[in-house]
């Protein structure tokens, strides 16, 4: 027995969710939030009941991408998540002022990440997409343990060699915790110029990484100013044609792979 009502509550909420997709990178600044929101938005677009949880406790940003306005209401089933583009979304950003620092301490991060999930009224979901924070700290460990029975992970990297070494740490942690890895996405891989792909950072280090760890390479995404423009105009990353086109293939691969998991 955990002895903690919050853990039991989290377990109960998890019973109503078919599968959890963790999106992590190990390193910040690789565009992980763009990717996690795009995965969740794609699932919702395909008709799946989808939730999105931002566990980046020190630097939440998904609410900005989704432009979510929290209702600040609760019922006996928990806090009402924000509804955006057919998604149920929850973030720590809803509970603090926009410019407030979030100096959450180690063990508190683990329980806060769990509470954020457990206190939300997710209802029945096909998929819960979880945006993990950079690094492999307390809240990441807490989430991996909590969702272990139903989770799989998507790892995000960039062509940068600096990114690769940190991503390797996350891959090894996921393997150690026995979380199946759906695959690796390389973000900011290239720019498109006159219908040509230009790989600014040379050959793909992520492909080498996926071969080394026997992980499926889900695809490479462009460094696309259209994504920022789309968000600034009030849309989502998937409103950028170039990004959406590449992302559709990636989502297809994720769905295909996840369908083989025993908990679905």
């Amino acid at each position, binding site marked *: *027995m*955990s*002895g*903690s*009502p*919050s*853990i*039991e*509550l989290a*377990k*109960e909420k998890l019973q109503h969710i078919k599968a959890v997709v963790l999106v992590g990178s190990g390193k910040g600044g690789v565009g992980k939030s763009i990717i996690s929101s795009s995965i969740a938005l794609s699932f919702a677009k395909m008709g799946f009941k989808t939730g999105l949880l931002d566990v980046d406790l020190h630097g939440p940003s998904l609410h900005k991408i989704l432009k979510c306005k929290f209702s*600040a*209401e*609760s*019922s*006996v*089933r*928990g*806090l009402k998540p924000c509804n955006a583009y057919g998604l149920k979304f929850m973030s*720590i950003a*809803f*509970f*603090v*002022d926009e410019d*407030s*620092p*979030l*100096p*959450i*301490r180690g063990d*508190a*991060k683990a*329980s*806060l990440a769990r*509470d*954020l999930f457990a*206190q939300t009224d997710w209802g029945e979901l096909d998929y819960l997409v979880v945006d993990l924070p950079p690094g492999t700290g307390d809240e990441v460990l807490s989430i991996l343990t909590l969702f272990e029975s139903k989770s799989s992970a998507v790892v995000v990297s960039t062509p940068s060699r600096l990114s690769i070494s940190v991503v390797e740490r996350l891959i090894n942690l996921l393997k150690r915790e026995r979380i199946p890895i759906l695959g690796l996405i390389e973000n900011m891989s290239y720019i498109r110029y006159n219908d040509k792909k230009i790989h600014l950072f040379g050959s793909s280090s992520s492909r080498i990484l996926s071969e080394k760890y026997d992980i499926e390479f889900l695809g490479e995404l462009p460094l696309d100013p259209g994504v920022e423009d789309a968000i600034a105009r009030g849309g989502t990353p998937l409103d950028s044609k170039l990004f959406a086109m590449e992302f559709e293939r990636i989502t297809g691969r994720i769905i295909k792979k996840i369908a083989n998991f025993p908990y679905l």
Partner: protein
Amino acid sequence: MHEWSLAEGIYRAALEFAEAQNVKEILEIEVGVGELMQLDLDIMKEAFHMLAKGSIMEGANIIFKIEKAEFKCEKCGYTWDFETAKEQIARNFSKDRLIKNEEGALDLPLHYMPDLIYALATCPKCGSSNFLVTQGREVKIRKIVVKK
């Protein structure tokens, strides 16, 4: 209301314990309640007894022991209590972020997520965010009395 979901959590945790230990009846449950969560214990008690109806813990005595919250600044060493922290939060917290429950009452988000205190409070003496909640943060089952 948050008290109902926590009561359900207590019920589930006790049931899991009873199943694992092959317990026939639960007579008493003692729960430590951190002051930070500002829970209405009468509602918790009522919710628990309703959930427990027809189960092996129907009629069990549920005892809540309030644990006072204490804070200590890691920078200047100052210590303070929850009343002081609450006054500070009330002064600085945007009212539109208070959570409205089904009955229209407004709660601080701490009620749902006590660890948010680290984002909402600072040391009343030196203003630092580098403080510890030394006790009174969580809800935890402390003791279960059973009949085997």
